[in-house]
């Protein structure tokens, strides 16, 4: 598939041809990455995750409960695409309400990994990553609450970038955990990620958490020599293939002239605990709005109370229900202090720990996931699935930008991604380091 950079040089007629080719390829593929082929705007087609509002589209967060809902306005990122020579084209599959790491919980069925259709594409932006990695999309927009852009990108051999919290407007993004959610690009290479990021970023008065900070256009300098921290105690929990890719990448970065410093961070079990308290608490609150009264699917009921219970019980899937129950548990009287407030306090510790490392380093290199993409159906236990988010969630808790990049393949040919993490609002350094790393590891599709 042509890159976003090249696509932006094409004429209207050429783009129309590319779009129809994309649609044919996607319909012929058995990945189930697209769940719709809607069009909005003119220009380079960008695939949109099913939780980003596009005016007039059925936007459903991969859920039964939003069947029948039609988005009444464009998300700010969509408005920005449309004024930058791009269009929204197609909806990508996702875990229901972005709650999952495999895209197996979607109302629209499982998405498959383009490198091995017996494996998951990761999640929750699994459809977007499978489409870009599988050559049936030029680029896509996903959302990342605990790794939902970076992990599927790593599993599907593409680039996934989560901007700093506040850098990209969340206006029009279906809320999962509002203090963690960010929209970001999934692309074929680092340069395309920077192009798409530059278009979607910027202050938006419609999002009160949007940062009012000027940010100039990203000009990638892959020759910048950086200090990159590696987290020694993280890697022992990853598979041997990931460990090898990690040490090979460190060597490649050193050969490229970067300085490596060795650090340790607190056990990731605290990140996982903090995340699953705070994200579920926020989700329980955000998802209270789905009651069958105003939008989406309404269940049969003879009184209002049954209307709420039936709509929600029939409309939400198991994982969403589990997180709502858990969120209401940690918020409920008697447990609020011990769980919710405790986790809020721990969030300070997590951010402070990153800041301490950033006193000495420009970037941090870390695995994205402890293994390559697992087989479909392999992860049954919710807690085991949560634990697989160990390397990605601390970044959301601290609000930092990070970029996942394919660096190697395992013996079965499955892609391995590693992530670079930068200081808050230092996306420029993130892209500089990522471009250098992309060149240094010489990854081939």
């Amino acid at each position, binding site marked *: 598939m042509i890159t976003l950079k090249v696509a932006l040089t094409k004429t209207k007629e050429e783009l129309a041809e590319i779009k129809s080719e994309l649609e044919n390829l996607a319909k012929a593929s058995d990945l189930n990455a697209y769940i719709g082929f809607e069009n909005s705007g003119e220009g380079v087609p960008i695939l949109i995750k099913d939780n980003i509002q596009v005016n007039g589209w059925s936007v459903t967060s991969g859920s039964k409960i939003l069947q*029948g809902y*039609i988005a*009444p*306005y464009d998300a700010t990122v969509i408005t920005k695409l449309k004024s930058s020579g791009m269009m929204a084209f197609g909806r990508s599959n996702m875990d229901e309400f972005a709650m999952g790491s495999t895209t197996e919980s979607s109302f629209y069925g499982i998405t498959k990994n383009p490198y091995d259709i017996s494996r998951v594409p990761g999640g929750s932006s699994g459809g977007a990553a499978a489409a870009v990695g599988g050559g049936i999309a030029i680029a896509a927009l996903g959302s990342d609450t605990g790794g939902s852009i970076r992990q599927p990108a790593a599993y599907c051999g593409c680039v996934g970038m989560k901007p*700093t*919290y*506040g850098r990209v407007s969340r206006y029009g993004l279906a809320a999962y955990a509002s*203090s963690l959610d960010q929209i970001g690009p999934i692309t074929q290479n680092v340069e395309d990620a920077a192009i798409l990021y530059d278009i979607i970023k910027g202050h938006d008065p419609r999002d*009160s*958490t949007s*940062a009012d900070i000027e940010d100039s256009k990203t000009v990638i300098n892959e020759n910048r020599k950086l200090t990159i921290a590696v987290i020694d105690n993280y890697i022992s929990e990853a598979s041997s293939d990931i460990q090898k890719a990690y040490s090979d990448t460190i060597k490649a970065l050193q050969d490229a002239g970067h300085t490596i410093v060795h650090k340790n961070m607190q056990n990731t*079990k*605290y990140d996982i*605990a903090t995340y*699953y*308290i705070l994200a579920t608490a926020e989700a*329980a609150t955000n998802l209270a709005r789905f009651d*069958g*009264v*105003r*939008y989406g699917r*309404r269940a049969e*009921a*003879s*009184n*209002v109370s049954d*209307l*709420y*219970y*039936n709509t*929600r*019980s029939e409309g*939400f899937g198991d994982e969403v*229900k*589990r997180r*709502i*129950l*858990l969120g*209401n*548990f940690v918020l*409920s009287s008697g*447990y609020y*202090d*011990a*769980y919710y*407030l*405790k*986790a*809020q*306090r*721990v969030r*300070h*510790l997590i*951010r402070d720990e990153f800041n301490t490392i950033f006193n000495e380093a420009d970037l941090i290199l870390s695995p994205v996931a402890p293994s390559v993409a697992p087989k479909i159906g392999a992860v049954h*236990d*919710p*807690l085991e699935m*949560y634990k697989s988010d160990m390397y990605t969630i601390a970044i959301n808790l*601290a*609000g930092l930008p990070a970029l996942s990049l394919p660096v190697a393949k395992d013996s079965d040919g499955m892609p391995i991604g590693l992530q670079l993490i930068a200081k808050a609002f230092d996306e420029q350094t993130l892209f500089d380091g990522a471009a250098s790393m992309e060149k240094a590891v010489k990854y081939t599709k």
Partner: protein
Amino acid sequence: MYNNKTSNKEENVQIDNTILEKLEKLSHLKIDDGKKEEIIHQLSDIVAYVENLSELDTSGLDASFSTLTGGTPMREDVSSKQEEVIKSILAHAPQSEDDFFVVPAIIE
């Protein structure tokens, strides 16, 4: 002031039927009887796991957190009426009439 309930290992919370019923009510969700045991087991595992935070000293740390500096911005209290959005939402609502959403009787 801050009562760290999880600091005492003996006080580990057990999710049982009573707590699940309370959570179903708070969540406006009904869990099928056949699934209750499994969900109690899963929630218990998760809650037991997140108890690990009690190992961390968080004294003196603020219970509010934001990655943004300057707090929530203030804006003028001006109404913004987007007629098209209102029309679209009502047109696609499960049931609506004039400018209202229609629901089953609230008082029997």
